[in-house]
């Protein structure tokens, strides 16, 4: 594959996360509006200043991004709806960056958010995809827990990973979350608690699973010139990839689409995995974080458990990973789960991460994974961010 054109001149600014709530009586519209307002305020802009709008959400029904323009009083000349769940931030960024480079829009707000009512997770599952309806739900209706349990089971068999290997990821993320006041989880987690937790879908237990909740995440994409004239801290986009339905003939998913594009990613970024100051993986289950670390070139396939065994995964460690606590400890606010790592990475490389700040962080890898359509996640994305201007 030829190296894609550079993303130079593009700035990512005004990262904003709402606090998350376990259950909300408000709608997705409410949460998306809250994050959008927060991001615009951080940039000192008004809604009328936006000319591009992009949204990812599962619970807007019957609305889409179109309905939101009228609902929120926006008048964009560039509009996009991204139904890619955990991969949405990387995909959103690619599209928005190109639109800004091409002049199709000057200031684009990228927002992801969902609400969570008492019964909305069950309802979301019941209408998730045709293949899931036909071929997955009738078999125990375990939802994503069961799907990822099967992948985890196979991964453990194939590569000899143990529950402790996954536990290390979860325990470190909880430590990170305790430094993030917005995180849903507020209590420390020990390895013992992780191992003794109630089983959910063997070999997956309680702390391997995310907590569905309500919340939203947002950031703005504009030109570097504009960011500088507004005097805003900003991140640059060094490289970005996406891929869908990769390795369709693998009998079960042990690798994701990143493997097809990882060389392009690092080539375009002009740097390698070892140069990253922090890594944000999509962590709906720890096995997927392990897969991303392998597939994005930090170690060879199957070496994830050994690679992570002697790494410090907390904010203070030598391999800072999911610094805000990720979804496992921060909570999964629907499609915002696809944005949580991106928004945190923008904060990190612009020096705005407060309690979870990795000292001097300049380069971050953010990776996304989404949409278990039947038996595996179909969408993968990744982006390398670097510091533009720090706060």
């Amino acid at each position, binding site marked *: 594959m030829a190296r894609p054109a550079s993303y130079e001149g593009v700035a990512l600014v005004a990262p904003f996360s709402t606090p998350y709530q376990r259950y909300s009586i408000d709608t997705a519209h409410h949460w998306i509006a809250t994050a959008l307002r927060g991001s615009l305020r951080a940039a000192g802009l008004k809604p009328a200043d936006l000319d591009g709008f992009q949204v990812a959400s599962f619970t807007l029904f019957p609305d889409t991004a179109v309905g939101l323009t009228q609902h929120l009083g926006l008048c964009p000349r560039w509009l996009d709806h991204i139904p890619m769940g955990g991969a949405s931030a990387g995909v959103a960024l690619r599209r928005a960056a190109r639109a800004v480079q091409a002049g199709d829009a000057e200031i684009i707000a990228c927002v992801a958010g969902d609400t969570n009512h008492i019964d909305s*997770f*069950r309802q979301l*599952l*019941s209408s998730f995809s*045709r*293949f899931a*309806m*036909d*071929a*997955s*739900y*009738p*078999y*125990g*209706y*375990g*939802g994503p*827990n*069961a799907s990822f*349990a*099967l*992948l985890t*089971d*196979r991964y453990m*068999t194939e590569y000899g990973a143990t529950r402790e290997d996954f536990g290390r990821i979860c325990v470190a993320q909880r430590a990170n979350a305790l430094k993030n006041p917005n995180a849903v989880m507020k209590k420390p987690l020990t390895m013992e608690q992780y191992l003794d937790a*109630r*089983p*959910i*879908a*063997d*070999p*997956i237990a309680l702390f391997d699973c995310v907590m569905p909740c309500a919340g939203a995440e947002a950031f703005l994409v504009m030109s570097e010139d504009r960011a500088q004239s507004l005097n805003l801290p900003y991140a640059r986009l060094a490289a970005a990839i996406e891929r869908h339905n990769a390795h*369709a003939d693998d*009998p*079960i998913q042990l690798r994701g689409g990143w493997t097809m594009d990882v060389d392009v990613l690092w080539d375009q970024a002009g740097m390698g995995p070892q140069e990253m100051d922090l890594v944000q993986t999509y962590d709906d289950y720890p096995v997927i974080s392990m897969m991303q670390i392998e597939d994005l070139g930090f170690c060879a396939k199957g070496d994830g458990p050994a690679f992570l065994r002697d790494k410090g995964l907390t904010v203070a460690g030598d391999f800072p990973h999911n610094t805000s606590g990720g979804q496992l400890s921060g909570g999964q606010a629907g499609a915002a789960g696809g944005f949580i790592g991106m928004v945190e990475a923008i904060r990190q490389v612009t020096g705005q991460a407060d309690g979870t700040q990795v000292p001097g962080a300049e380069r971050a890898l953010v990776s996304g994974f989404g949409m278990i359509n*039947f*038996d595996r996640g179909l969408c993968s994305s990744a982006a390398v961010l670097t510091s533009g201007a720090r706060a």
Partner: protein
Amino acid sequence: MTHPLSPPPRKDPQKRSVSPTRPPEVRSRAALHLTAAAAEGRFALQRCADCGKVQYPPRDACSACLSTDLPWQDMAPGGTLIAETTVQTSPRLYFRERMPWRAGTVQLDDGPTVLAHIHGDVARHARVRITARLDQSGQGVLVALPETDTPNMEDDPLMRALSADPKHRRVLITDARSAQASALARALQKAGAAIIFAGEPESWRPYPQRAELEALGVQILPMDVTDTASVQKLAGEIGGKTDILINTARFLRPGGVLDRGDTGFARDELEVNYLGLMRLAQAFGPGMCARAADGVNAAAAWVNLLSVGALSNARPFGAYSASQAGAYSLSQSLRAEFRPSGLRVMNVFFGPTEEDDWYQPLPPPRVTAYALARSVVDGLQRGLEDVWCGDIAQDLRDRFRRDPKVLEREMTLGGEGA
């Protein structure tokens, strides 16, 4: 090895019957072909007519070559269990009530990977046999069984839910006078039925099978399907412990329209074959539906014995065929009405029988009562919806599926007249 089921204890009358809940029913149209094959006990998937790739989940276009010609074909059952999980919690009530639930990923020898229910006797990473069954929503699901049979494997709770096995169940044969009644009672008894009841119309009239039924320990109780009061009376007495109902009541006479001088026999045919079914369903159906989740001996199935003439009119039993077509159509309505409870409707189609005198002038082959009884029990054990018993029924089924109009033309030839 599966632990053998013990006979359920007597029901505590103070206890509330568990309301039936169901696994998900919604499917795409393509996926209903898997259900249609499972309804007859076959495991079929789509194989691309252009490139040969086997598809799963069911699709509208080939994932290798985009062909839209994806005929359904029976598949080899062999596969390997490559991953498994035991689901401990689910937002779906049906599974929540049955946790923990074992499910796994099976790589088929024919190519694709499927998600399947896993029988308790399957070992980790073992070779398995895939079979397609109807679940309690009446939809086809795939089940991974041990490669070779294990003792009591049908007693696994999973298999009980995917069948209407007569074992430990109480069965009502609606007409003791039917030529098939004693063979049925014998087969059901052999299959482990707990109690067999038989309804008996016109008790004052002797018939040869009675002694045989009595010798088998069948409880013979008065009921005439043409008499609403008698049907309701028996339902009041044993409706609460009827787990399987097999409707053997049948009025059979030769003749079409012009062969008969009046509508007398036609009236009897409708009274027994059509309205009799309706009376039985109105009296026994609601109680059976309410008990469809009642433990080991939950109400499980409603069985209709239907002439294959129900599909396409079969002379010289033209008027009788019409009554069977009516009963068949009514059985489809019953299916829809029973569906929310999980109670199954199984139709057993058959051609001319050996034991019914009215078929005497017809040439062989004929269906024996023994063969019919075996088909009924086998169908219940496999949870089937449609059973085709004997060569004639299977032949007519295939011809009907090939082209119903051609079959009709063949069945209505005028003969070489003047």
